[in-house]
Every structure is written in structure tokens, then in C-alpha cells.
């Protein structure tokens, strides 16, 4: 699994890490029981504070997305949670879009209509 | 490889580290020193050869540059003490060198640039003193080499006759005499941002005071300066006492009395160095 952080994103980094892990689970690039990079590995790779990575892993464990085996590391949980994770992910994407819309002075209806139009142009089918 | 618990450093290790680093910091100095020793060999060998031919010398010197001594000619003609001369001349050169040596020890590390040295896990004063002590050891080492070479050459060229007649204090003075100028200048180098400035300033002040008091006929001040520096318990005596009395035939302090003079001045300078190392000023 590849975890990347967007430097332009001002959300707390531990949340970004959590989202990345969830994304991998939902999209399918992370298998059940797959190991996550160690705290040390991820911290050095992404030039992050190890406490931040630690916090992300802790929260993920609390939510059941991952589980921890003492001395062996952190692993992805059974992927039955996909359903829940998809829901969460959708929420995050929607919130971001709505905020953006509001900042640009658009209403909810305008946004939905625009999304549909864009989907058409990009040939993305509904219910796909 | 095991790793130990952290903690401040013991003085032995500090001293050893300072000795090594002083050595490493003066690479070019080492080369110059070696060149000097070589020159010394050549000069002495040449000296011995000339005298071996029984040609009397008129006070012409072929040894390395030094301050001329009025009694040198006398010394040359006195006896077959060329070996002793070799030692004595080397002594004078080294005594002057010893005075300037602290500049080498503390190069580029005047107090405003001594941050690295002082940021080490060693008490500041102890660390500075360790550096001074390392300089002493280096100086003694150099003296040993120079005198050793001198005696060796003298032995080889068959001019060692006079060496046996030298007193213990002479030998002692050869080694500890130069330590006085070293210690004196160390006080300045440890404490001052611009030691050369203080040096010249001090000399200038002395000269000024001396001149003024002479002009104004205030005998006391000039006399005082004379006593302090050249009197029988003066600084000069502490440095050269036995050397000048036995080699140059001057009526200078020798023997046990000289030792007392030396100890007095050394104690004074040591106190000065410790005080200098304890100071915390704006740039320290």
C-alpha cells in the first residue's frame, strides 16, 4: 500500500493518513491482513512526526480498520468493513465538494446539477 | 558495539582529547617545527666541524636567527663548551617561541569564537585549562626533541665535553624556563578577544610610563619596572637564571633561589590563567 500526503491539504495529517488507509481498503489495493508500513518507516518516508503516524494508527485501530499484533506491526482488518468505509469516504468527498461550492457561491442544487453534467461528459454512469 | 550512558567527561579524557586536537590543528606548524629541527642539526653540525678545525670564531654566528647576546662572543671563546652553547642557543629560541605558542594553541578561537569548545559536556574553565595543559605537554615535547637533537649532534661531532659540568638547575631551567613566557601569554589568549592588542598596549604602556617617569625624574617607577622584570627575583631571572649564570657567565640567580623565583612567577601566572578561564564577559 502506498500512503501519500498532500502538502497543500491543511487538514490534520493524522486524518489524512487515516483517509489514505481507508481509501486503499475501499479501492481494493489493501488486502485483509496486509501489513501497514511501520510507524518508523512511514514517518521517515513522508518526513512526518512519528507521534502523528502513531496517532493515525491508533485511531484506525479504534475504528477497527486495522488491528495491531504486539511486536509484529499493524495490519489491515477483514475487508467486511468496506461498506462502512465507502460510506465514510463518500462523506469526505461530498463535504469537500460542498465547501468548495459554498466558497464559490454555488447552491446545493447547482452543485448536484453540475456534478451530473460533468459525469455525463466524463462518461461516468450512475449506479456504476 | 555497546553504547554507554551519557554523562559529563572525566578530566583525563578531556586532556587527551585536547592534546590530540591541538596536534591536529597545527599541521603546518608541525612541518615548520621539523624544518627548524633540521636547520638546528645543520647549524650544530656545521658549528662542530668549524671548531673541530681549530679556527677561532669572532662571534660570527651561523645558527638560526636569534636575539644577539652581548656575552655570546665571550661564551664562544671561554671554553670548549660548544655543546652547551648549542643547548643554550636553542633554549633562547624556544623561550621566545614558547611565548608565541599560545597563539597557535588558540588560533581562531578567541572567546567570541569559542562556542564549539565551550558547548562540549565539560566545565568551561576545566576545558580551557585542559587546552593550556595540552600546550604545556606539547611544548615540553618540542623542547625534548630540540635539546635531544642538539646533544646528539654535539656527541656525534665530539663536542660534548661541557655537558657533564652543567648543574641540575641548568637542566631544569632548560625545560621549565620557557614555560613562564608560555604561561604569561596564555593568560591573555584565554581571556582576551584581541590578545595582540593587549600585548602591544601593555608594552606601550610600560614604555610610556618608563619614559615619562624618566623625563619627570620620578626614579621610583622605572626602578620598579626594572626590579619586577630584571631584578634578582624578576621575571627574566625566572626564565633564564641558571642558563645565563652557567653559560654566559652572568651574575644571575641560580640554584635553589632560582627555583623559588620560578615557582613564584609560575604561581602568579597559573592564578592568572585560572582567573582568566573563570571569567564570563560579554563575548564569553
Amino acid at each position, binding site marked *: 500500500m502506498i500512503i501519500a500526503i498532500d502538502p497543500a491539504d491543511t487538514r490534520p495529517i493524522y486524518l489524512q493518513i487515516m483517509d489514505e488507509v481507508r481509501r486503499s481498503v475501499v479501492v481494493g489495493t489493501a488486502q485483509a491482513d496486509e501489513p501497514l508500513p511501520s510507524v518508523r518507516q512511514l514517518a521517515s518516508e513522508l518526513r*512526518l512526526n512519528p507521534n502523528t503516524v502513531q496517532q493515525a494508527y491508533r485511531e484506525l485501530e479504534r475504528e477497527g480498520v486495522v488491528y495491531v499484533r504486539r511486536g509484529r506491526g499493524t495490519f489491515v482488518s477483514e475487508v467486511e468493513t468496506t461498506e462502512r468505509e465507502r460510506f465514510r469516504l463518500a462523506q469526505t468527498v461530498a463535504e469537500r465538494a460542498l465547501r468548495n461550492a459554498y466558497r464559490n457561491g454555488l447552491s446545493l442544487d447547482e452543485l448536484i446539477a453540475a456534478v451530473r453534467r460533468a459525469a455525463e461528459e466524463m462518461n461516468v454512469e450512475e449506479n456504476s | 558495539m555497546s553504547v554507554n550512558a551519557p554523562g559529563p567527561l572525566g578530566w583525563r579524557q578531556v586532556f587527551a582529547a585536547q592534546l590530540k586536537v591541538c596536534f591536529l590543528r597545527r599541521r603546518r606548524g608541525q612541518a615548520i617545527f621539523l624544518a627548524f629541527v633540521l636547520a638546528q642539526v645543520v647549524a650544530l653540525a656545521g658549528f662542530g666541524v668549524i671548531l673541530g678545525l681549530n679556527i677561532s670564531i669572532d662571534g660570527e654566528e651561523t645558527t638560526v636567527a636569534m636575539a644577539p647576546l652581548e656575552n655570546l662572543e665571550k661564551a664562544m671563546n671561554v671554553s670548549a663548551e660548544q655543546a652547551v652553547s648549542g643547548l643554550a642557543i636553542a633554549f633562547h629560541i624556544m623561550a621566545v617561541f614558547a611565548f608565541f605558542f599560545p597563539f597557535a594553541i588558540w588560533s581562531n578561537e578567541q572567546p567570541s569564537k569559542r562556542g*564549539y569548545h565551550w558547548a562540549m559536556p565539560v566545565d568551561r574553565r576545566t576545558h580551557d585549562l585542559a587546552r593550556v595543559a595540552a600546550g604545556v605537554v606539547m611544548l615540553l615535547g618540542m623542547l625534548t626533541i630540540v635539546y635531544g637533537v642538539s646533544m646528539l649532534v654535539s656527541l656525534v661531532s665530539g663536542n660534548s665535553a661541557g655537558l657533564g659540568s652543567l648543574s641540575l638547575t641548568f637542566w631544569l631551567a632548560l625545560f621549565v624556563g620557557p614555560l613562564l613566557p608560555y604561561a604569561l601569554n596564555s593568560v591573555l589568549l584565554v581571556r582576551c578577544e584581541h590578545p595582540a592588542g593587549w600585548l602591544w598596549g601593555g608594552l606601550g604602556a610600560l614604555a610610556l610610563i618608563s619614559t615619562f617617569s624618566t623625563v619627570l625624574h620620578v626614579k621610583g617607577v622605572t626602578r620598579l619596572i626594572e626590579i619586577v622584570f630584571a631584578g634578582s627575583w624578576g621575571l627574566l631571572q625566572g626564565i633564564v637564571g641558571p642558563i645565563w649564570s652557567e653559560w654566559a657567565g652572568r651574575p644571575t640567580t641560580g640554584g635553589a633561589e632560582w627555583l623559588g623565583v620560578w615557582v613564584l612567577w609560575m604561581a602568579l601566572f597559573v592564578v592568572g590563567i585560572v582567573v582568566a578561564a573563570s571569567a564570563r564577559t560579554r563575548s564569553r
Partner: protein
Amino acid sequence: MRPQLVKSLNGRPMAVSTRALTKSFGSQVALDRVDLTVPEGSIYVLVGPNGAGKSTTLNALVDLVRPDSGGIEVLGRSASEAGPAVRAEIGYVPETTDFGYGKLTARELIDHHSRYFAAWDAAYAEQLGADLEVVYDKRFGKLSKGQARRVQLVMALAHRPRLLLLDEPTDGLDPLGRDRVLEILADHAASSPTTILVSTHVIHELEGLGDCLGALRDGRLIAQLERDDLGDHLHRVRAEAAEGWTPSSDLVEQSLVRKASGRELDWVIWGDAEALPSRFAHEGAEVRDVARLNLEQATRAILRMEVN
């Protein structure tokens, strides 16, 4: 009510704690009653304009400079009384690379340095040297600033000190080198229990690493807070209001930076993201966006704010 930006970060053991630290050089006030608190295990980013007192602060922590008044506690002990013992557990990279040891090669300098630290880990030193691409056999005085910095970093990190004091650690390094240093610092923080206090101008580099921010200006600590606290409460608000809109003094006091152009407002203000839109609405301005700030943006806002 002015926002209190200087927090004492209590509740955890402190690696560094100064009380009303004051220092002047002649008539120049370098530090003015600074209450710095650096929690153990944190990566504390110290920012401020040139001459703000950052280097003086670091120097005071290693007892190179004695304060005129105020107390300094480092790793639980007095910086001046227990100086040597404390410094044995500190890795210090000063701003300068010129400290009179130019004739030694890098290898000799590192060797000399290693003798002073009982906890020196030679294997780690070697690894760091390789990772940082240290040029060992060149005279230290002949190295470029970046190359010299690399050597200094090996010297500071190799004995795994409990406290790292880094004054512009990436100064002189090329982009790859800077990135490598950050990688090494992250790895070091993850593998050795340590507190890192970094003084820097290049804040964006530390976006990932920093978890506390301290800002000095003219010798005074004008801000000190945890990253999360900062992120949760310091916001950039873009709003719309009628021309000639005058905010209440309360609202102005909460703000750090205010920009207005025509109907548009662009403020940096302290407050909860949920509460801000209604506060502005209450005064007749419509909030379009409330955005969190990253460390760099927050620093700029803090250093720009008016402080009395």
C-alpha cells in the same frame, strides 16, 4: 478579547523550560521575559525574523550565554549549574560552520567530537555519514556550507541525545540534501526517544514534522502553542460585507491579520470553525469560507500581527 497565543504547554514533562528569560547585549535587548516550554518528545519549531533572538535562546540553553535574569531548565536541570551533565545529553547544531577547526578533516573532527560523548554510537555515526553523503577526507574548513552542515548533523545525532537543538539545520543544503535531512530527522525521532527544537526560516519543510510552534519577535515570545491547537483555532476567513463595513472591536481583537478589498474580506482570526460564520453574520458579514492554516501560513500571520 485578545487571543492568548502563548500557552505554557503544561501537562507533560518539559525538555526545556525557561522562566522570564531575559538577556541584553549592551543596550540591545536580545530576549525579553521569554517563557519557553518545550514538551519532551515533541518537535518544536521556533520561528521569527532575523535578530528575533532564536540563536540567543539556543545559546542560552547550552550555557554559552548567561541570562541577565530568569531561569533555564533543560532536561530537568539548571542549564548553568548542571551545564556539563546536561550538555552530555544535547546534540547542538549551531548556525555557524566556522569554529576554528578548519584544519581537521571531517573524519578527524567527528572522531574528536565522539570522544566527548560516552553514549556515542559509532555504527549509527557511520550510517548517518553514509546517508548524509559526508565527505570525510577533506579539511573541514574547505567544505561548502552544506557539506559542513552534514558533518555537524552527524556530530549532533550520533550519540542519540535526549535533546536536539538545531539552528537552521538545512542551511546551505541543496533540495535533495534538505529532503534527506528531514527524512533522517523523522527516522531519528522514531527510533530514539528525543525532543527536537528547530530554529528555522524554512517552515514549510517542517510541516510534517513539527508539532509545536513558538514565535519570537524582538526578543519576545509572541506565540507558543501545539500544532493541533493552532490548526483547530487559527483560521483564514473569507467573507463578504458591504463596503465601508466596520467590524466590532471584539472581532478585531480576535484577529491577527485583516485584508479588505471592496466587498471582500480576507482575515486570519482565532476562533472555532463552527462559531466563526455566525459571529461574522452577527456583524453583517457573510462568511464564504473558513480554512485551516498550515504551519507556514500560521507563522506568517502570527509574525504579522500587531502586538502591544
